[in-house]
């Protein structure tokens, strides 16, 4: 099955043959939605740059760029309905934003102020980042099993029936947990979409080391449908995810989407991609940039230059606001070491907390 795409790299609307069955899903989108897609992708890219700068200036321990993957993330995020649950990996910043998360909360995690950062139930069911690769795929599957047991899915009402989307990557696809999650999902026919962003690199190791077969083809081995999409085409990402999620919520079981995209930046700010990949490879993908192509498409639709100018201004304002508020993030008090390890009383933890309080108090009145 050829890759599903609607937009060419030049931004021309030329659906692939494989895209035909997904065309009706584009009817759900208005021009306002298109503008929103563009705006979110552009704002997120500017945010990404700002966050990397903050790390370089010593204000974040680490940054995890999403540059290049904006279309895969924005399209799939808009395909989810409010009642759906999102289990991210750790690079899906714009998905969080679309679900109502203040992205500064992500920076709390990367500034070392928290191990989590937000309450999923207050931010569009966007669950916490998971740093052990693929561990979240099983949590997502278990959560989707719970939806089934609760009878909150497959009732025939797409406005209330729930589904889960879980994000992972080409590197994580090699993990046992990803494969076990696919086994469980197929076995229980969970209402769940596995959204695999194939950004071609697991830090320094190319996807060819992870798989000899296109990753979407693995789905058939688990007995679930797999679809490969042009992950830099926001319309393909939206339409295919919308269909897969709605199939899932209607009781037609799980699906896997492989979004072909590219990590334009480093894995994290601790990485140096010039050591392991060549400029030609990068240039090939830069020419397929998801934002530039969508801008061309919108321009062809008649969206004027003032819209793009206003988005650029909004992105700059957004970034400076993020910078200001990131610098205001303060660490929690030391009691956070102890407070949430257990839900119920634990004498050892209480003893150690009291000891630390006494120890710290013993320095009171001394010169700093």
């Amino acid at each position, binding site marked *: 099955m050829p890759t599903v795409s609607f937009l060419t790299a030049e931004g021309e609307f030329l659906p692939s043959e494989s895209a035909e069955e997904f065309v009706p899903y584009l009817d759900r989108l208005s021009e306002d939605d298109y503008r929103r897609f563009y705006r979110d992708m552009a704002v997120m890219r500017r945010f990404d740059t700002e966050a990397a700068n903050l790390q370089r200036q010593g204000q974040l321990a680490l940054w995890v760029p999403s540059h290049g993957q904006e279309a895969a993330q924005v399209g799939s995020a808009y395909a989810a309905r409010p009642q759906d649950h999102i289990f991210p990996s750790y690079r899906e910043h714009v998905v969080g934003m679309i679900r109502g998360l203040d992205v500064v909360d992500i920076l709390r995690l990367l500034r070392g102020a928290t191990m989590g950062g937000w309450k999923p139930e207050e931010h569009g069911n966007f669950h916490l980042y998971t740093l052990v690769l693929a561990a979240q795929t099983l*949590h997502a599957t*278990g*959560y989707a099993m719970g939806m089934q047991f609760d009878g909150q899915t497959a009732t025939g009402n797409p406005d209330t029936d729930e589904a889960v989307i879980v994000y992972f990557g080409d590197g994580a696809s090699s993990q*046992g947990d990803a494969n076990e999650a696919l086994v469980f999902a197929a076995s229980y026919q969970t209402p769940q979409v596995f959204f695999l962003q194939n950004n071609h690199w697991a830090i320094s190791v190319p996807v060819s080391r992870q798989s000899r077969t296109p990753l979407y083809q693995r789905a058939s081995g688990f007995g679930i449908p797999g679809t490969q999409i042009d992950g830099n085409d926001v319309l393909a990402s939206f339409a295919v995810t919308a269909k897969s999620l709605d199939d899932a919520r209607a009781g037609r079981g799980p699906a896997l989407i492989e979004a072909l995209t590219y990590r334009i930046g480093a894995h994290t700010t601790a990485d140096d991609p010039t050591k392991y990949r060549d400029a030609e490879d990068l240039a090939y993908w830069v020419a397929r940039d998801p934002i530039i192509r969508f801008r061309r498409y919108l321009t062809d639709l008649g969206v004027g230059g003032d819209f793009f100018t206003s988005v650029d201004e909004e992105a700059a304002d957004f970034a400076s606001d993020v910078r200001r508020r990131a610098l205001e993030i303060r660490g929690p008090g030391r009691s956070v070491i102890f407070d*949430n*390890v257990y839900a*119920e009383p634990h004498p050892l933890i209480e003893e150690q907390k009291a000891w630390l309080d006494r120890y710290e108090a013993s320095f009171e009145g001394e010169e700093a």
Partner: protein
Amino acid sequence: MSEATPSAQNVHNLPMAKAITAGLRQAMIDDPKVLLMGEDIGPLGGVFRVTEGLFAEFGPRRVLDTPLAESGIVGTAIGLALRGYRPVCEIQFDGFVFPAFDQITTQLSRMRNRHEGGVIMPVVIRIPYGGHIGSIEHHQESPEAYFAHTPGLRVVSPSNSHDAYWMMQDAIASDDPVIFLEPKSRYWPKGEVHFGQNGIALHASRVVHPGKDVTVVGHGAMVSVLLQAAGIAAGEGIGVEVVDLRSLSPLDFGPILDSVQKTGRLVVAQEASGFASVGSEIAATIAEKAFYSLEAPVLRVSGFDTPFPPAAVETHFLPSPDRVLEAVDRVLAY
């Protein structure tokens, strides 16, 4: 199952395996969010028949025969707990918990902490553990130290049927993840279960045999070995006080300290290897907190720091009443 139906005045003589079945059943009756998950736990009732009858009574939505993947079992249990369920996972044998070790230690144990207290993680991991059953590799192990060392987990192990019945229900009712270690060599000896009366908290240790000369402590199957040793010692005029730990994390040092302050001597016994073990922790803590009460160094009687051996030589590996009494003699020599 009818013999295990609880009522306030009921006292039944049950093997521990069936006491656990009764505890699971009662928890499932009390709370519809309680689910059982594991390999072969459905129509078969588990390889030790601990879930026998529960699939027939509660159906496949409450008793899940899962795919054969331990990380998958625990990982999906975490998702179910996030959804509001209280999953009880059966790991088929001690040596098979390690495929789930990552989910237990990096996810389950930390999920509440990561959420800044915003979620609870009421997941019970049942693990039949320990030797004395003459089985093959990975079927006789005692992995408790790994879990006791992991912040965020609770670790308990009953030594008798009554405790097993109540501790299972208490573990399921806990809002924290509990590693529930079932001493498989004690599955079949019968003991009284008082259905109407628990009488002791999940994480309390307790004296199960009084004595004035030496304190010995242990958990799970080791408790019956310690009681045998105490009986032999009594015949020789030596009073051995036996403390059943019941909980390994948190550890209830109160009854151990009280006992050591009386006897001045402590022997810690366990099937697990001794190096960096629960026994080591007890020895260190008692040396710190009861230094002036001690008349002798704290001694450990443990499995050796080797893999669990072939069954033909397991009696040389496992602490026996005689091995315990050898240590008792040594502490009395001071």
